[in-house]
Every structure is written in C-alpha cells, then in structure tokens.
C-alpha cells in the first residue's frame, strides 16, 4: 500500500499537479497497484512544484517537478522505501529550506488536506478557540495585546489595541472583516493559507468575534483568487455543519457567522476603508479617517478589520500563550512573518521565520539568488508600493523598524527579485502607471499625481541633456513629496517609495550619474 501526497494548491496545479495526480491514478490502476492519493495543501516550496510526496518509514520522501510523463518511471522504483530516482529530493522535512524555517502559521502546509476538518483537528486545530472559550472577552483581548502581534497586512498596527477599541465600543452589531484582497505582486501567503488551511482563518475570526463581541464576519477575497473563494465557502459549510460556526460557537451561546465576499478586480480594495465600501456594495473609494473603522466601520458599526495572516495568528496565540509567541522575533516585531520569495528567484516560495533574519539570508540562503543565474540587481520588498532595495542594503534585518530606517517597508512580506534585465527607470514609470490605473480617484494627489508622474518619468528617461534631466528630476521629487504627504491613503502616499528608491539606488537607469543623485 502506497500513500502519495500531491498538492491541490492552485499554483501547484498551474504547473501540473492535477495532471500528475490523474496520471498516478491511471498508471496505478493499469498496474493494479494499491495506492492512495491524498490531495494536500502546498509546502510552499514552489520551485519544487509539482512536489509529490510518499510515505516512507523515515517520513515523507519527495520528488520534485514531476510531470505526467515521469509518473511511470517513478512507479518503477520502490517509492515506499524511499527508492532512488532522478527527481528525488530525499526526506522533505530534512530539506534545509524547510528545516530551518519556523512554521507556526504554516505548520500544516503540505501536510494536511485543506478541507479535512479531521486533519485540522488532528493537527492542533480548534485548540485556540477551546482555550479562548474559557476566558472572558477582556482576557482574550489582553492576551492578544500581550503577544505583541502587529497587523500583517502592511501597516503593522498593534492588533491588541484595535481589538480593545472594538471591544469597548458600544453597539448592537459589530463585525469582524478579513481583508483577503492580497493584490501585492510577490505576495501569495494569504492565498496559500486560504486555499490550504481555511479552518485556521475561520477559527481566528471566530475567536476575534468572541473577543470583540461581533456575531458576523466577512472575508473579502479578490476575484483573482477563485480557488481560494471556493475552498473557503466549502470550509465554512463544513465548520457550520460541525457547530464551529452558527448559533453557539464556544459553548456559551455566542453566535458567529462568516460570509465570503468576492472582490471585482480593484487593487485599492485592499485598503481597509475602500474594502468596507466594497462590502457595502459601493465603489471602492477610500474613506477619510477618522472615524476609525474600529468605531465606525462596516455599515457604520464597530468593525475589526484584519489581514488573513493576522487573524490566522490568533489561534496559536490562544493555544500556546502570548509569552510563547513573544519568544519569536526581535524588538517590536514579534512572532513570525511569512516571507515570500518571488519573481526572478531560483528557489521561490514561502519562508516563515521569526522577524530579524536579514534580507541577504532570505534572498541567498533561501532564494539561492536569481533564476537566471545573473547577479541580483535589486529586490522590491512589500509589493508595488515597496522600495527597491540594492544589494548594498541586504544586511538589513527584516524587522519593521530596521526597514523603515532605510526608507523601505516590509508590507505583506513579499520579495520580488530581479536581475539586470529589469530596467528600474521603466519600473518607476510602471509604479506611477499602476497607481493611475488603480487610484480610486477620491484625492487629487493620487488621482492626478500618478498620471503626471508617468509623464514626468517619461520625460526624465527621454531627456536629451543633464540640465533637462535635472529639471525633470526636481519636478518628480516635488510631485512625490505632494503624493506622499497629501494623499488620503497608502496607494498615493507610498507610490513614491518604489519611484524614489529606484532613482536613488539606480541612477544609471534614469540617465543620472552617481554624483547627480548623491544628496
């Protein structure tokens, strides 16, 4: 009897996992072999996908980048005894990439079947809610405060303070809203978690509802993530059928229900107030703050808005305790962060580690440099609004404050690598163009500034002489200043980050010489 584990993650499938699973089933039937194929989540070792794992007495052995035409040769060797094959990577959990990680949030990644509540419970699921149910509302909030958890969506606001604010607000109806509008290029941790471990998010939201006194939750998922939406909806039905959602979720008569709402292709809806507008059925225009969503959020009611990973961190904080959670990380960045290696990278994937490892460790020890084999030119950290970081700054620890000190930000933890085939002058132009395309239009610096930004960068890149370049550069600096300080939200406010970091660190891509940029 042979047990195979093949991911059902949408990206694993996009590189052939479904076809491989089908071929294993067909070939095994032809050979009259007794095999079980378990479709799991992905380990997040995307450079190995489709990664097929096999139960052996020593643990799960892996076979990398399997294609359907290699299935027959794999079945020729004794897989159950960790048989040798060209595609063998040995025991998966011994791979340095995985072994050196601190998988707290993604402890079940690649191991369990996403929609198996049985698997979830067998691997620590719902222990957090069980513990939370024994505490008072204020004790739960105090635990989250004590853990030092900060919002993982990008703004890194202390979660406990938000929880306390919503808890203390007086209202008939409160809401928990999960921001799953993961639109940053280079980010896929939310997608992996929703597709791979949906009950963890449901449990986190349920605890949040219990703590702040909310009986309804919404998960707002971008429409590009159709498989995640389908998995979540099914998981919600399963949880409800087993009493984990509904009229009494924690044996104390507390009601909690979750509804999944699908976005409609608007990057700005990742901004929390714009997201709330969208859930309310309107254009996703940004709201001015204050009032804070914690007091005046969805449908005008107190609302706890959190990113997927923030909410998914809560069950562990409850079951293991805040003081345990605080053991991970450094300074004011506590716990683990799901870093994501993407773009032109040799070993792209998910790296969950405590805050504090350096960008160099992430890019080289895990990522292995570029996929093209050429030197790494720069890394864009934190999505389209994040700075381009040159190799000279790779020793910066990945911690909110340390990154802010070099004018960068961690954002949602995505790191996009590039080599010299990427022209950072063009990428600066792209940043402005993206902002123009995705601006909600409410504030002028973002709506008009982004379009003017595209034009100024085009003139800068085409400037015939250094005097003209200098004039356009000054204009661009001025425009960036206006956008940064005058915009209503982070879209207009942070688009200058990739633009100015590119100009500062890669002046040659703008036709500027090093002396021109040294200021």
């Amino acid at each position, binding site marked *: 009897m042979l047990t195979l584990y093949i991911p059902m993650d949408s990206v694993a499938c*996009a590189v052939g996992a479904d076809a491989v699973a089908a071929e294993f089933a067909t070939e095994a039937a032809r050979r009259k072999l007794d095999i079980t194929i378990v479709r799991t989540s992905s380990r997040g070792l995307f450079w190995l996908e489709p990664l097929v794992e096999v139960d052996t007495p020593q643990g799960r052995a892996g076979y990398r980048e399997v294609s359907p035409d290699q299935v027959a040769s794999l079945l020729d060797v004794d897989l159950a005894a960790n048989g040798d094959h060209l595609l063998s990577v040995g025991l998966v959990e011994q791979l340095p990439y995985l072994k050196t990680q601190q998988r707290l949030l993604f402890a079940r990644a690649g191991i369990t079947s996403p929609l198996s509540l049985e698997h979830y419970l067998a691997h620590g699921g719902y222990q957090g809610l069980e513990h939370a149910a024994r505490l008072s509302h204020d004790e739960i909030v105090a635990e989250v405060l004590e853990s030092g958890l900060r919002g993982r969506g990008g703004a890194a606001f202390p979660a406990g303070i938000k929880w306390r604010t919503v808890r203390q607000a007086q209202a008939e109806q409160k809401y928990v809203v999960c921001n799953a509008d993961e639109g940053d*290029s280079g980010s896929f941790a939310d997608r992996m978690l929703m597709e791979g471990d949906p009950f963890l998010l449901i449990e986190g939201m349920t605890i949040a509802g219990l703590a702040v006194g909310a009986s309804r939750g919404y998960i707002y998922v971008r429409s*590009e993530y159709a498989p995640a939406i389908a998995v979540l909806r099914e998981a919600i039905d399963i949880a409800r059928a087993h009493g984990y959602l509904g009229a009494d979720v924690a044996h104390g008569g507390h009601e909690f229900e979750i509804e999944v709402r699908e976005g409609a292709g*608007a990057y700005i809806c990742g901004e929390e107030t714009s997201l709330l507008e969208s859930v*309310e059925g*309107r254009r996703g225009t940004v709201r001015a703050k204050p009032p804070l969503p914690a007091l005046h959020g969805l449908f005008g009611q107190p609302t706890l808005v959190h990113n997927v990973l923030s909410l998914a961190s809560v069950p562990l904080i409850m079951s293991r305790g805040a003081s345990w959670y605080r053991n991970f990380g450094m300074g004011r960045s506590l716990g683990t962060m799901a870093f994501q290696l993407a773009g032109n990278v040799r070993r792209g994937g998910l790296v969950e580690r405590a805050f504090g490892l350096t960008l160099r460790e992430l890019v080289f020890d895990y990522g292995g440099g570029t996929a093209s084999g050429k030197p790494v030119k720069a890394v864009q950290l934190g999505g*389209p609004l994040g700075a381009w970081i040159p190799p000279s700054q790779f020793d910066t620890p990945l911690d909110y404050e340390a990154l802010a000190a070099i004018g960068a930000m961690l954002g949602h933890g995505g790191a996009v690598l590039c080599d010299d085939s990427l022209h950072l002058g063009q990428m600066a132009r792209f940043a402005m163009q993206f902002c123009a395309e995705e601006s909600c239009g409410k504030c002028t610096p973002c709506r008009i500034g982004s379009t003017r930004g595209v034009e100024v960068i085009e003139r800068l890149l085409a400037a015939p002489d250094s005097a003209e370049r200098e004039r356009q550069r000054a204009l661009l600096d001025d425009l960036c200043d206006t956008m940064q300080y005058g915009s209503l939200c982070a879209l207009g406010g942070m688009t200058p980050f990739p633009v100015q970091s590119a100009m500062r660190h890669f002046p040659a891509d703008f036709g500027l010489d090093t002396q021109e940029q040294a200021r």
Partner: protein
Amino acid sequence: MNAQQQDTLQQLLQQYRDLPGGLLPLLHAVQDVLGHIPADAIPAIARAMNQSQAEVHGVIGFYHDFRTSPPAAHSLRLCRAEACQSMGSETLAAQLRTQLGVDDHGHTADGQLELRPVYCLGACACAPALQLDGQLHARVTPEKLSALLAACGKEAKC
C-alpha cells in the same frame, strides 16, 4: 435581453435584493450567468437594490471585472505585475502583439480572443503567469504560450 434572460435576472434580483451590501454579489451573479451585465438590466438592478441607475453604473465602471458587453470566446489575462515582469511577461505581451496583433484590452481581428492585463495572480514564485479561460498557468514560456493558444484554436500567425 430575451425572455429567458429576463427570467434569470428576476430570479437573481429576488435572491440578492435583501442581502446587505448585495450589489457586488448581484453583479457577479448576473455576469456569471449572462456573460456580461446588459445595459437594459441596469434599471431593474437599480430598482431592486434601491439605488439610482447612476450609482449602479458607477459601481460597474469602478471595478475592472464588470463588463457591459459580451465577452469573446476566449479570455486571456496576462499578469503584468512586477514579479512577472522580472521573469519576462513583457516578452509574452510582445509575442501576443506580433503573433496575434492583440494589445492590452484588445481582441483578435476575428473577435475570438481578448487580452486583458491583470496585476498579480498569486503565482509570483512560478512567474510569469497567465489565466486562460479562467485556468491558471504558471512558468509560462513563449513556447508554452504558443501551445496554449494553439489548443484554444488560436494558431499563432507567423
């Protein structure tokens, strides 16, 4: 809309009219069933959701996903965000321009395939990525793109 489409619309309006903030789910449902949001459905949608027609138009216009004209037979969404750009998505875009004469937001001369840019499909560790008729494909090379197009009947013109 023909009579059958009218019926479908009425059913959907019944289903979503009382859902709090139900306009987006309703528009998604209409588009899923009818392929687009017909202009003559908007007055009924506005009435059912107790909004002005201008508000409904405003919502449809705001979101990239909603469309008021029928889709082409095949829809190709090529990711143009940073991670895919760093792995050559612009080369794929150029290939589509030269081989099929199709540009962003455009469609082939025979109207069979439309191309839309998309900014991130969450496959950034296996870039570049695209979605063809809703199906995600990653680690896309020029050869793989040609094969995908051939499979949906769009032989690349050389």
